[in-house]
């Protein structure tokens, strides 16, 4: 029986408690703790005492002027750009092809499944697999290059700075372009089909349709992809850590690998690592703020379209689940 005037609002609070408590303990507290450590002299395994430095910003000054940290930052940016530009180009090309109503590319489902596949495979495994694939003097990639006559001598990819960076960037590209493609295709499918029909009737060419209709309407999705990819790129760890351990000559050392090395591989400079983490946190917060503005609620028309699309996908999934 329904009691009159019952107050259900309290359940909003009750049902949010597990999330909030977990967040406070496992996210907020560690972030504050890391910030505090950034201002202390904490180094060495097994210490938990807190002694603030006389110059509280000493760790930050040391990190910001540290040549290796600067190198790590520029490596991270460089490798990210080297992976992001080709990733966007290829993803856009495939999106244009797969959503073109005149081409009607067959076997799209199979292509999507295969192209997306590397994204879900353990990055640690992929790093080691590529280490073996690019082996020197004998390795599958060198064998293939020699068999096709592309090189006369086997190449030592692991020893050259630029080949090492290129391979790391290629791995990132290879793992993520399928993901970006699916995101873009979903964006195109969300555009009202009447727009395309009208353009076709007016005799617009495929490139015209793509640049004049599709691209402008994908602006939000492209921005979203850009920002999330930047935030992800800043955390690049597994591949550079296990592929060449940050080498050769720190050419693939990223900020995350730098932080890990400071704190956990022998030197135990927790305070320096904490300061470096906070610098990264600030950069990521700025990017997140950007994303926040991209994601904030849009005009009602867009919201309705999104809802329709969500319902459509929900229905398909539901149908498949019950099969």
């Amino acid at each position, binding site marked *: 029986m329904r009691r009159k005037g019952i107050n259900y609002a309290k359940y*909003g609070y009750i049902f949010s408690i597990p999330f909030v408590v977990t967040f406070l303990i496992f996210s907020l507290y560690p972030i504050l703790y890391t910030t505090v450590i950034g201002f202390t002299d904490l180094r060495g395994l097994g210490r938990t005492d807190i002694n603030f430095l006389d110059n509280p910003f000493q760790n930050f000054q040391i990190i910001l002027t540290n040549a290796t940290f600067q190198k790590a930052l520029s490596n991270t940016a460089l490798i990210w750009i080297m992976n992001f530009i080709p990733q966007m180009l290829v993803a856009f090309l495939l999106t244009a092809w797969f959503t073109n109503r005149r081409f009607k590319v067959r076997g799209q489902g199979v292509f999507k*499944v295969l192209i997306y596949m590397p994204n879900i495979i353990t990055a640690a495994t992929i790093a080691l697999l590529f280490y073996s694939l690019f082996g020197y003097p004998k390795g599958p990639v060198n064998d293939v290059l020699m068999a096709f006559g592309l090189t006369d001598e086997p190449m030592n990819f692991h020893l050259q700075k630029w080949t090492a960076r290129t391979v790391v960037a290629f791995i990132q590209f290879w793992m993520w372009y399928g993901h970006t493609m699916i995101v873009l295709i979903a964006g195109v499918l969300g555009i009202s089909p009447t727009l395309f029909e009208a353009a076709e009737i007016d005799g617009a060419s495929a490139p015209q349709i793509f640049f004049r209709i599709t691209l402008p309407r994908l602006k939000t999705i492209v921005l979203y992809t850009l920002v999330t990819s930047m935030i992800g790129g800043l955390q690049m760890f597994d591949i550079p850590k296990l592929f060449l351990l940050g080498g050769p000559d720190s050419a693939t050392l990223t900020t995350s690998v730098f932080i890990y090395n400071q704190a956990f591989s022998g030197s135990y400079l927790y305070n320096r690592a904490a300061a470096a983490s906070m610098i990264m946190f600030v950069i990521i917060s700025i990017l997140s703020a950007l994303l926040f503005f991209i994601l904030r609620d849009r005009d009602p028309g867009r919201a309705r379209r999104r809802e329709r699309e969500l319902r459509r996908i929900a229905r398909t999934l539901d149908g498949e689940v019950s099969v």
Partner: protein
Amino acid sequence: MKMGMLASRNSTKAVIYIVCIFLALISIFPFWIMFMNATRSTFEIQQNSVAFWPSTFLSSNWKILVGKSFNPLTGFMNSMLVSTGATLGAVYFSSLTAYALVAYSWKLRQPFFTFIMAILMIPAQVSSIGFYQFMYSIHWTNSLWPLILPAIATPAMVFFMRQYLMATLSLEIVDSARIDGAGEFYTFNRIILPIMKPAIATQAIFSFVFSWNNLFLPLILLTNNKKYTMPIMVSLLRGDIYKTEYGSVYLGLALTVLPLFVIYFLLSKYIIAGVALGALKE
């Protein structure tokens, strides 16, 4: 003219298929080599590192692999525990939090949602030093709990579940359950969760894969080899003791991703649909 247009369209189509097949082969090639070389001896691999068919050295590679530090069964069990636990916690409590945001009107509802949006992208990595020190001080460094419990607060999943509920849930169902005398908690468990099944399925897959692949936190926290997860087992293959054991290294790599391949080829439809769904949170 019409013939000319048709011919150029056909040649464009040919280019499209060639590029797509080439990209598909690039996706397959590394894994194919990995599975084939897992069955070949070091000598065979040194002779020719590319093979299209398996050889007969699977069991000897296995013996060498497990004879050293790599323990696939321990890694598998630990990764299973972590991934299953984290996934159950994440999907259940994210759904519950999303339900709180959609079904009830409470004073802090909008601020709470804004807060979730704000913390959406904060990675665990930036707080790793404090997290490690915290776990060290409560003696949890060699426990699997710190890899499972934080999943209860997964902002991105709450966001996704909220969008899904907003699009699919009609509050009349909730009201009629109340009239029938159902408690709020009962309504959520018995009526709302089943409605959310499609969303839970896709999010569960991503959560599981994310936990399974996670390297950073386990690498920091776990020093006892009985607690190692699969990605840490993988990192052992980078060590000197496996330096000349090519076949065994390939086998070790293959073992770590075998469960993922099974999951992927059984559920690729949902996974691809899930990525597309995630994109709609624009």
